[in-house]
């Protein structure tokens, strides 16, 4: 396989994949939209040296980004089309389902508590992913508990205690709020 790689260029070449043209177009439009906002979203102050201008680096970044995005788009346009563009785009869109579940989990943690939310999230996602055997579901639950024990109980990372724990009796409530 590597015998075919004779130059540095070949080594670093990343071949195009389906969806390249779509992404190049979206990124160019995004760059142009940001560039059009340059004068209103970053200030050029008359009494200030050019190197300290608030708008200097956004301008450098956006002009550079737009120029390279345009060149990238042109190279996508002149390249032969690769079949499977919309199949690829649908693959990207499928990921939004997991964004949704992730954000539900984020919102649930301060309400239901870190431990219950994590265990439920792990088991729910396992079921959603097609792992229905008791072995895999147990593994998911154990993983959830282990993550909470390592990060919250031992490393004491900053994750707020859940409002749900307020329903517990006094002694247990403090324990749950601190450790889980």
């Amino acid at each position: 396989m590597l015998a075919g790689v004779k130059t540095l260029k070949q080594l670093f070449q990343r071949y195009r994949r389906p969806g390249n043209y779509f992404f190049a177009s979206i990124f160019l439009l995004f760059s142009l939209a940001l560039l059009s906002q340059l004068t209103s979203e970053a200030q050029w102050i008359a009494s200030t040296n050019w190197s300290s201008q608030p708008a200097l680096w956004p301008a450098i970044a956006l002009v550079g980004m737009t120029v390279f995005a345009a060149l990238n788009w042109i190279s996508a346009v002149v390249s032969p089309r690769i079949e499977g563009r919309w199949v690829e785009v649908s693959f990207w869109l499928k990921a939004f389902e997991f964004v949704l579940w992730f954000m539900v989990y984020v919102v649930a943690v301060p309400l239901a508590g870190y431990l219950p939310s994590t265990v439920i999230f792990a088991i729910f996602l396992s079921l959603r992913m097609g792992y229905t055997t008791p072995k895999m579901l147990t593994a998911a639950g154990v993983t959830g508990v282990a993550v909470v024990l390592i990060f919250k109980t031992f490393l004491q990372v900053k994750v707020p205690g859940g409002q749900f724990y307020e329903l517990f009796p006094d002694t247990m409530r403090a324990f749950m709020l601190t450790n889980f």
Partner: protein
Amino acid sequence: MADLIAAAGLLARLDVLIALLIGSIGGVIIGAIPGVGAAVAIAILLPATFSLEPLVGLTMLLGIYGSSMYGGSIPAILINTPGTAVNALTTYDGYPMTKAGQARRAISIAYSASFYGGVFGIICLILLSPVLAWIAPQFGSREIFLAALLGIILVVLAHRGQIFAAGMLAFFGIFLSTVGLEPIRYTQRFTFGQTWLSGGFDLIVVVLGLFAISQAFFLLVDKDNSPKAQPLTGSLFSGLKELFGYKRVASAASGFGVVMGMIPGVGEFTAQFMSYTYAQKTSKTPELFGKGSPEGLIASEAANNAVPPAAMIPLLALGIPGEALTAMMLAVFYIHNVIPGPQLFQSDISFVYALYFAMLLLNVIVLIFLLSSTNLLTKIIQIPTRFLGIVILILSFVGVYSLRNSTVDCAIASAFGILGLILKRLNLPIVPIVLGMVLGGIMETKLRSAMARVKTPLDFIDRPIAAILFGLIILVIALHIRTLVNEHRNREPDADHELHDSQQR
């Protein structure tokens, strides 16, 4: 000498040693699982180290950084799937050896070469320290600006065949570093009147999104897979003996790793390519390369393991990260209020030496662990990929949410997760965004302070180091143009290959 003793004293603490043990063994395990990798692990663990002391937190992450490539060679050799992106080249000679019934020999050689490369890199780092301590203070604002600019140019040019996309993403990274309240006039930049944008984009949130959450999405949406690796039988010590037969290749490969690791924006791929080409050209059996050559395996593994210590050179001496992992390490340094750069070498050299010793120690720990536990790791490789995606998503939550308990941060990280997923699917590089973000911020600050003493444009390069750096920038661009012209003249049909499918891992 007193500094060295003080450094050993810093390390001789139970908490530091435990952190090193967890980091190095954890790094090997993480590296061995295809689909995770050091970047994901460091991104997730970053916030967990905030509450630890600087040396404890840094040694843990350093452990992961330095050891993941060891683990990555196991699936590369046994199942033709690199554990981390930089083990891609290892598959070329490692897997054919497995097919020929020499899996144990290949694994043993890979460990030995990795150990050789890692230790070689650290020895170079230790030997270079006095030079660095002398040269680093001569880097003022303009030199650091030019070095950061050189880093950005190199990271773009290093992505040959995708330079436009890499340039676009590097500038996007620079743009991200400018969003929010700017520190001089306190004006808002690209916040669109939204208060949640005033603080700008946090590097850790972006990194977690681009590396960890994107990987979780990638694994969750893709087909489920559970790689199977055969267990190994017999001792793994034989490779150490065999390596001595190839001392020249191992030393040259480690040398390439050190030199390429020191240059920001270049890194493991170039080092591996150069060492592999050198090994093939000087070998008595060049026809075996790609078909199970031990020399090819040594060239690949020694080179990639020599890079992490060398990549610490620009990071520690100048505060300039050369690739994504050192950019993350920089974030850790800042959070622990340890500012890498010329002052660190002058004021706290024993801390720097302690980090070197930690790296040396981690190589020994990892080698001992691997020689005794490889079969355990072959079982870990078999975790189903979608289940791995669930675990990464749960761990990413801790990483992002524990920063400031912000739902908005989680939403931003998810958005970068989608962007990272698209880039991985398109085989486009993520590193330019991260380096653009870090180096963009450095360039803005350093240009501003440098210009205070510059009257004419030539003043900017009137000091020797600034002039050399400027010369290097011109040279790099000129060489690139020359290469493009030559390649255009001798236009050869491009042979497609899958080398950089490793972007997806």
